[in-house]
């Protein structure tokens, strides 16, 4: 089996301490993981995770505190939802979501940390080095920065537990459907945006991405409204669009 690259983002108070304890107790595990310390698992941004996959990681591991133990009280609750969002994005980009793993490891679970590292490394070895279509993965990478998905990832917990402003509580099933739909929407939008690095018409994009022209057009209108694209020229009575490269527009 080929060697695989794994990155681990560990929270300072629990999982990083658990990893240290594994060392103190000399629990061995494969040397494939490179650990990066963050203060809280809540710091981990889906955009960061996807960037990591774009730059050589075959597997990404996030370690946080068990619910109730978070040093910052609730960061891990938010982390859980953000990482679920990242998994949805991986899936829609055609990357196995199992390459991203979230695990709660307390500061006293040295043995468990080592066991999880062993297990995860094995799993990634079986999946093999990551293969992805760079356009698709780049699309979800910029989708993760999109305000719609960021709002949903953060608000998911509140909507499931406390309910929305009307007092309506979402079930997990409803939430999953909503999120999957939104992810698909934003992903398509970003794929179109990437395609428009070169000037293209709606028909060309529809062919490229295997989407219906009216679906593409819906996204085009939205992208235009946010000034992310503009009309490049008119060709054969059809507008040709291009991504906006002005500095002040994200």
């Amino acid at each position, binding site marked *: 089996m080929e060697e695989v690259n794994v990155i681990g983002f560990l929270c300072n*108070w629990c999982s990083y301490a658990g990893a240290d304890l594994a060392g103190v*107790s000399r629990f061995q595990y494969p040397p494939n993981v490179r650990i990066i310390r963050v203060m809280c698992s809540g710091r981990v941004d889906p955009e960061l995770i996807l960037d990591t996959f774009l730059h050589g990681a075959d597997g990404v591991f996030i370690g946080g505190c068990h619910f*109730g*133990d978070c040093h910052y009280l609730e960061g891990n609750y938010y982390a859980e939802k953000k990482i679920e969002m990242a998994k949805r994005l991986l899936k829609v980009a055609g990357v196995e979501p199992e390459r991203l793993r979230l695990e709660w490891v*307390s*500061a*006293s*679970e040295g043995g*468990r940390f080592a066991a999880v590292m062993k297990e995860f490394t094995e799993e990634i070895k079986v999946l093999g080095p990551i293969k992805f279509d760079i356009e698709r993965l780049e699309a979800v990478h910029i989708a993760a920065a999109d305000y719609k998905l960021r709002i949903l990832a953060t608000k998911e917990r509140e909507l499931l537990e406390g309910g929305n402003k009307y007092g309506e509580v979402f079930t997990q099933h409803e939430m999953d459907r909503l999120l999957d739909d939104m992810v698909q929407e934003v992903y398509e939008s970003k794929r179109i945006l990437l395609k428009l690095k070169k000037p293209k018409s709606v028909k060309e994009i529809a062919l490229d991405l295997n989407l219906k022209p009216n679906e593409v057009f819906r996204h085009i209108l939205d992208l235009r409204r946010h000034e992310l694209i503009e009309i490049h020229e008119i060709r054969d009575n059809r507008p040709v669009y291009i991504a906006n490269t002005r500095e002040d527009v994200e």
Partner: protein
Amino acid sequence: MQAAFDLAEAGIKVCLVERTLSVGGRMAQLDKTFPTNDCAICILAPKMMDCYRHENIEVLTFSEVIAIEGEIGTFKVKISKKPRFVDEAKCNGCGDCARVCPMGILNKFDMDLRVRSGAYVPFMQAVPLIYALDRAKCMRCGLCESVCGQDAIRYNQKEEIVEREVSAIIVAIGFDPFDPSGLTEYGYGKYDNVITALEFERLICAAGPTGGHVIRKDGREVKRIAWIQCVGARDTRDNRPYCSSVCCMYATKEAILTKEHYPEAETSILYTDLRCFGKGFQEYVNRAEDDYGVEYIRGKPGEIIEKENKNLEIFYSPSSDKVETLEVDMVVLSTALIPCGGVEKFAEILGTELDGYKFFKLKDPYNPTETTRAGIFVAGYCQAPRDIPECIAHGSAAASRAMEVVLGGSFL
């Protein structure tokens, strides 16, 4: 530690004297704490480091107070620093000495359930992480000295007596678990599979001697466990009529942890009165019953008998005036928690009085940290049974009284 930390943070210099090799106390021996099921050492270790590293706190471990002179505002305290036989300034906690030492000694921290070497720290998260040689068992073979990269071994280290001048003293010496060997009806020490609650804690602890597996003497993992409450407590026979206050809750915790490790296991708690009075306690008990299936049986056992297969048969009398039996493969005795052995001698050194049960006597029942000697305050379990949050509040309370002495010049 809480008292020392509060004082230090307020700018007051503190000398923290700890009898064992590490700060942390009994909480370091626990796996999890009720009712939140927080990992004990995880939440404790940062506090241990904070204390040790604080610029205003001098931590003297493996040390004991041997004499006190003077009075409030001007105490002179003599402290005996027992020799570790290791140079504290040089040892960096690498553990090479422990790995080569040929001696195997039962580790008190693990309730004698695990062997440590003669060069040791009591547990891996000890603060300070400075090794010591067990002088009683040391063979002077010289192996530790030869591997120590820091040249820190000192076979001829002697006890050092130091003196400190302080305005106030806080006593927080904690408790010992009651030894139930004398209660022959329970068979502790006789039967293979009757253990105490603190021993159970070490078994179920992931960093403990069995890595979190609750194993009987014959190596089998448990399927049915029973906890027996009030062992040695609420007992007028031996002048221990008081209630240790935390045992009902720690038994509930241990039962929940057992169910988490072994969802199929049967867990029963045999109790007299269920002391579930604290914040979150009733809800915790409800969870244990409803979510985890822990069985609560009111009825104190009269007798435990060991069967041939080393299982235990418990004879108890529940509400219905009958005698029932319960067969289990392990019995955990929720032992009372009692004042430390040797506390009378220590109280003499301090010049403070103890009450009839050897808890530190308060000058006034509504001034919960003042002993009978002005300037000496008391915190924690050694004054009366209390749980961890109450001990921490009590520690801060003792600190506030000491602050009044130092900051306010208050000599009452």
